């Protein structure tokens, strides 16, 4: 195996796709948050106005988008922790590739049951409950 020439930066080579994904998820979550504060502000208008907007959160397509949002936040959080460890932990730079694999594994392990619990109601209401 040729020696990897990654240096110590998380930006670059193998680290590059995580850097791009970190950027995209950060921006996406930020824009969601702008809208989210607006929809929450409807509690100052009337209970009805708020409940109507929140009803859209419960529709199948938006429900699916919520899984995407949670996946994006979770990736950004895990990769953010990895970046912090690379910066501050003395062994971080050497282990950064292993940590990339680790966060992908943690992401999957949390997202599988997470997606299940987030979608179960929608799936049952669309296709009927089996029980």
């Amino acid at each position, binding site marked *: 195996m040729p020696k990897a020439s990654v240096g110590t930066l998380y930006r670059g080579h193998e680290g590059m796709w995580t850097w791009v994904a970190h950027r995209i998820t950060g*921006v996406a979550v930020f824009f969601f948050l702008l809208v989210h504060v607006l929809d929450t502000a409807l509690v100052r208008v009337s209970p009805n106005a708020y409940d109507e907007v*929140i009803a859209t959160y419960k529709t199948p397509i938006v429900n699916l988008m919520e899984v995407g949002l949670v996946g994006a936040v979770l990736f950004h959080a895990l990769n*953010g922790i990895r970046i912090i460890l690379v910066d501050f932990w003395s062994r971080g730079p050497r282990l950064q590739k292993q940590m990339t694999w680790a966060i992908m594994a943690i992401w999957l392990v949390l997202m599988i049951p997470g997606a299940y619990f987030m979608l179960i109601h929608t799936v049952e209401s669309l296709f009927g409950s089996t029980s």
Partner: protein
Amino acid sequence: MSAPALNAPKTARSGGRTNYEMWSWIFMRVSGIVLVFLVLGHLLIMNILDGGVQRINFAFVAGRWSSPFWQVWDLLQLWLAMLHGANGLRTIINDYSERDQTRFWLKAALAVATVFTIALGTLVIFTFDPNIS
């Protein structure tokens, strides 16, 4: 380790801003660690526990914001996520906008959106009225 080297992205700027950039670099990391608990906790409560998103309505919010604990939680989450996200976007604008004018207007729009959203969210938490009709 090589921490300071990370903070020299494509930002074609020099002079006068190093101290600010250092604090911003530290702020991104400190706020990030706090946000792990706040935002992942928020998402777990809102989307997974106890019926998830299906159970959210005005009465649910009224119940939560009757407790100072969740008021403080949401307030911290609002300020930290907005400032962390806005600061991240500032870096991205610096990286990609090539003309000084574009950069200026993008940052102005970002600042307006950020101040407005933080102010609105703070106002909503402090003036929430469960008996509003």
